[in-house]
């Protein structure tokens, strides 16, 4: 059996707590959640009662007691596996809560002083202070101040935005970075309402909801159990007819050996461990089926910004227009970028500086900050020159408002240039002075270095990656080609995203969507799997069903693997359980007959000792198999993305054949041990 990693699964787990929890789980009202183990529990009770009865009658009761104790251990092992998985999850969750509690915000007091407090302690209405280079810790409303923010982590738009109090733009979103100045923010969405609650839920001992797949498998297992129960009950009249004596402890032991206790006992632990593993990778699943779904998705929708690109753009080329001298254009571009502290602005300076060494420093009269409304920024100089840069259409619009119009030739040239750049996936921005358009600066999206690899990994897992972006189709196509994604949705609006998901779902594909903005919420809710970045706003976090606490979409293949692993582990342990039951049949049945029909001893090919010893050995082996399989349930069966037949054959072989052979070996060894006592 291969484990996913070599780390021992009980590391950092408080075993005392696990032990007590496992004892609590003997309560019938909790035991009944695992019908198979509940049946073992009933058998155990009956067996103990029989032992007392034998003892009261003065008959030999030792054997019956051994059976009862082994049954007790069997039930306990199942309880133990659940308690262990639960506690492990709690350990990870509480560690994450601690981490969240270490996030510090500056609480603002009316007298102008601030105190550092954990973000988790902030309540709705508290005021916090942020300044340049701070990340806004929580959603809120600006009550004082004005600042430029980079909201690319939230909106995907990398251009800096100005936010100030008492305006339409006074709300700020967690995850935005303050680029300049300071703000006092009134908290509107404290932490407790989302992530922390979910984490707390894991820490609390709430009953878990079974996933649909788990339910379907339970039905199958319960059916097999019922069939076995009928078979064993049917053996009573048949054996009486033949004059065979089958004592109650033996019948109970037989039943327990033949029902699928391995999978029945470990089924809850498998599900919980899947969520634990997700959590270890900083994925907080709101329910178990979200993790399962991750293993079955066909299509993944990724936002371009922050996922495929870093969200930053850098200037990479300069184009003067008309008969404009290069020098003039470069100087203007330089001048109006000098005050621009964004990466874009800085990259323009960096690009121009080596091209033009004798660049004079401008005498700036007034800095025009970028505003989302005009989509322009720039400077007014002392000499009366007014320089603006921004989206091409916005700049042309600005010129028009000054009654300056582009000549048809120039318009054609600009249009051609814009299209050419767009085809290359560049974003053009225009630079103009008060009289005319000077030139176009080409901005390039910075693609994350490892994205190609991640997309390729997704493809190996059978998942198509679709890029979503607000950019135009031409730009998008180039970036899509650079990143190697399978398809893209350009000029995406919330409705467009939703429609795309619906269309794919109509075709039967299972769609996962990674999102973080509030406008993603409808799409996230519609997607089969909504993965939300922790930096995302409260609305989207509510809509999704998995929160990525690290906000790193690049590790998505890991989540997919965890999902697949969870299902494979269920299938593998079911196969194992079934084949080991069959193996036990072959050992037990000859044992039952050897007393009345010595001839059948020939079928006792393991050369086992007495019938009573065989039954007890099989029962002990049955419990040991649960113990042996606990690590498999905890770690999950290793998943390799290869050909599905190969995967199926491999798992069938390892768990089918393994499950058939292991009981023989164990029973023989236990039998030898029992004889030597």
């Amino acid at each position: 059996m291969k484990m996913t990693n070599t780390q021992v699964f009980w590391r950092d787990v408080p075993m005392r707590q696990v032990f007590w929890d496992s004892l609590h789980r003997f309560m019938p009202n909790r035991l009944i959640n695992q019908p198979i183990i509940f049946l073992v529990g009933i058998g155990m009770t009956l067996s103990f009662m029989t032992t007392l009865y034998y003892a009261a009658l003065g008959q030999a009761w030792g054997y019956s007691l051994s059976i009862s104790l082994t049954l007790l251990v069997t039930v306990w092992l199942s309880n133990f596996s659940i308690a262990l998985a639960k506690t492990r999850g709690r350990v990870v969750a509480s560690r994450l809560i601690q981490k969240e509690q270490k996030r510090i915000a500056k609480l603002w007091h009316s007298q102008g002083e601030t105190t550092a407090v954990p973000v988790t302690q902030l309540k709705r209405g508290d005021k916090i202070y942020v300044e340049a280079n701070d990340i806004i810790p929580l959603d809120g409303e600006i009550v004082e101040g004005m600042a430029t923010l980079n909201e690319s982590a939230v909106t995907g738009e990398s251009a800096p935005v100005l936010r100030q109090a008492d305006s339409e733009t006074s709300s700020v979103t967690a995850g935005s970075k303050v680029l300049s100045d300071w703000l006092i923010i009134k908290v509107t969405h404290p932490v407790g309402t989302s992530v922390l609650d979910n984490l707390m839920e894991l820490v609390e001992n709430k009953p878990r909801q079974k996933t649909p797949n788990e339910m379907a498998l339970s039905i199958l297992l319960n059916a097999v159990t019922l069939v076995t129960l009928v078979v064993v009950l049917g053996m009573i009249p048949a054996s009486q007819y033949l004059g065979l004596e089958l004592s109650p402890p033996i019948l109970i032991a037989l039943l327990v050996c033949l029902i699928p206790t391995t999978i029945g006992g470990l089924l809850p632990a498998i599900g919980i461990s899947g969520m634990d593993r997700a959590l270890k990778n900083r994925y907080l699943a709101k329910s178990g089926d979200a993790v399962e779904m991750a293993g079955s998705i066909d299509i993944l929708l990724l936002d371009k910004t922050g996922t495929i690109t870093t969200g930053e753009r850098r200037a990479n080329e300069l184009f003067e227009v008309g008969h404009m001298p290069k020098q003039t254009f470069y100087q203007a571009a330089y001048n109006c970028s000098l005050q621009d502290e964004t990466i874009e602005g800085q990259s323009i300076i960096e690009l121009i500086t080596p091209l033009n060494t004798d660049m004079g420093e401008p005498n700036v009269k007034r800095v025009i900050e970028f505003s989302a409304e005009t989509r322009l920024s720039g400077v007014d100089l002392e000499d009366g020159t007014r320089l603006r840069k921004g989206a091409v259409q916005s700049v042309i619009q600005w010129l028009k408002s000054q009654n300056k119009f582009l000549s048809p030739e120039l318009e054609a040239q600009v249009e051609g240039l814009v299209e050419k750049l767009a085809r290359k996936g560049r974003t053009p921005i225009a630079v103009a002075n008060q009289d005319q358009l000077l030139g176009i600066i080409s901005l390039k999206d910075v693609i994350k270095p490892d994205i190609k690899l991640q997309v390729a990994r997704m493809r190996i897992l059978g998942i198509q990656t679709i890029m979503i972006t607000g950019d135009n189709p031409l730009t998008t196509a180039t970036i899509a080609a650079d990143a190697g994604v399978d398809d893209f949705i350009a000029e995406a609006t919330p409705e467009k995203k939703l429609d795309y998901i619906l269309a794919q779902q109509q075709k039967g594909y299972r769609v996962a969507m990674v999102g973080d903005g509030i406008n993603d919420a409808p799409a996230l809710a519609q997607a089969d799997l909504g993965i939300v970045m922790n930096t995302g706003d409260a609305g989207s976090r509510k809509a999704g069903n998995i929160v990525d606490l690290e906000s790193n979409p690049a590790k998505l293949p890991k989540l997919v693997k965890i999902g697949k692993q969870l299902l494979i582990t269920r299938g593998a342990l079911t196969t194992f359980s079934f084949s080991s039951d069959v193996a036990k049949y072959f050992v037990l049945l000859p044992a039952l007959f050897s007393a009345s029909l010595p001839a059948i001893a020939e079928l006792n090919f393991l050369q086992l000792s007495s019938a009573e010893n065989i039954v007890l050995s099989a029962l002990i082996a049955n419990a040991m198999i649960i113990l042996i399989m606990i690590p498999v349930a905890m770690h999950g069966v290793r998943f390799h993305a290869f050909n599905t037949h190969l995967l199926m054959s491999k798992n069938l072989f390892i768990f089918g054949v393994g499950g058939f052979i292991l009981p023989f070996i164990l029973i023989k060894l236990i039998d030898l041990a029992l004889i030597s006592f």
Partner: protein
Amino acid sequence: MNEVILIYLVTLLLAWPLGLYIARIYQTGSAPLDRVFLPIEKGVYKLMGVNPNVDMHWKHYFKILIIFHAFLALVVFLILRFQGHLFLNPDQIPNMSWDLALHTALSFLGNADQQHYSGQAQLSHLAQGTGLVTMQFVAPAAGIAILFAILRVLFKTKENVEQGLVGNFYQDMIRAIVRLLIPLAFILSVILTSQGVPSSYQAAAQVETLESSEEQAIPLGPVSPMVAIKQLGTNGGGWYGANSAVPLENPTAISNFFEAMAIMLIPMALVFALGYFSGRKKLATVVMGVMLSLSVVSSSLAIYSENQPNAATAEWSHQANMEGKEVRIGETATALWGAWATQTGNGSVNGMHDSFNPIGGLVVMSNMLVGAIFGGIGFGLVLFLAYMMLAAFLGSLLIGRTASFMNKPLEGHEMKLLAMVFMLQPFVLLVFSGLTLAMPALSGISNPGYHGVTQVIYEYTSAFATNGSGFEGLGDDSVWWNLTTAVTILLGRFVPMFLVLATVVSLVSKKATPSTRESLQIETPTFALVIILLIAFAFLSYLPFIVFGPIAEWVSLINH
């Protein structure tokens, strides 16, 4: 050995084109020989007063099927109960008891043809030649009808399925009878008559035997048509009590060859039909691969077993086990017949299963416990589909996908229905067997000990599998046996039919997931292996009883 390979090959070669023909019958549009058959069918519909062109909702389809069967059962019950007063009774055979009449009617209705009577002595020509023969046509036709209803749901038009429409029951039934069963039965009947099987309405012939001066009555009747459909329709209920072991039912090597082939012909052809009808030949290959390999293993074991000396007399004789076999047929042909008649739902015999060596007895019983090696006509494939769906559930998990079959998600509801299909058999078998063994006064077991256990379980297994063969020696014409086996047959036949139909309807009403490289491929050898393992697992849950019966007997005999 060679004749076994030959008959497998010939049957396969004949089943292939027949499968294509059957698929064409059930496809929309024109079918072969429409010019001959359409007018006949139209006449039948007019006579029955039904409209064959209305697609029925699946529940309605099944309801009509049940009503149709119930009506037929009532008619046949009345014929049997009052045959003494009715015509076509030259040998003045008396009325049947109510419980035996009920059992006989339901047993023929359910395609089991379990007989707790001896045909020639207890049935009039009217009862055998009309009542029972009609049922022998209707029962396999109903199996084919339900199969194609299910296949339509799985493979055919989407818009119909969304409304739950599955086809027209009358059309499906009548087409199977008119276009498939009657023509084939006619051909076989002619062949059998040519070999000397009686085909008359005369009373029993009175002959003077060589041994004594007394006259012996040799019962005659329209035997060959009944034998033909008994073999072809996985029915198995013959004219004479000893079935095809009687020279009058099976006089020559040629008749034996054709009768044996007829057992397997339509069950095999339906697998080919599945491929042609669904357009998924690879799927049919997987089904055929699984069925054929299980069949070959089972037949080989049976033939091997019967070629061994009789377990009880092995000390004195080293010849093959000829107890309960016709010398003119021989051990191999008898073993093969026994294997085939239980791999399918046929259950006719040309030797006594009761006298098989323990392993041979184990094989015929195991075949019936599986029930889907080829199974009853149509019905076997329906059960096989249920196995496939379970295998798909497990297979999906093994490759890390949420479970689906034919790209439709298998969820709690479907698993509940499938679980019921597979739980029903052990419940019915073991509850009845347990009761019978617990109250030996009821059971009339002729052999105490292990063989007796085998007899009891065999009787219920045979009933549940709608097979009908008997491990004779059981005094089975009692109220207890007649009623319990009749109930077993009804449960074993109609409940799984309904459950599987309901499962596929529920399945296809869901959204399909398109087939991708990552989804479960069911048309592969690996998947075939998963099916075989599941069948083996389901079968092994009966292991305790197999050990109690045939295996314990075998072990006790070899160590005698």
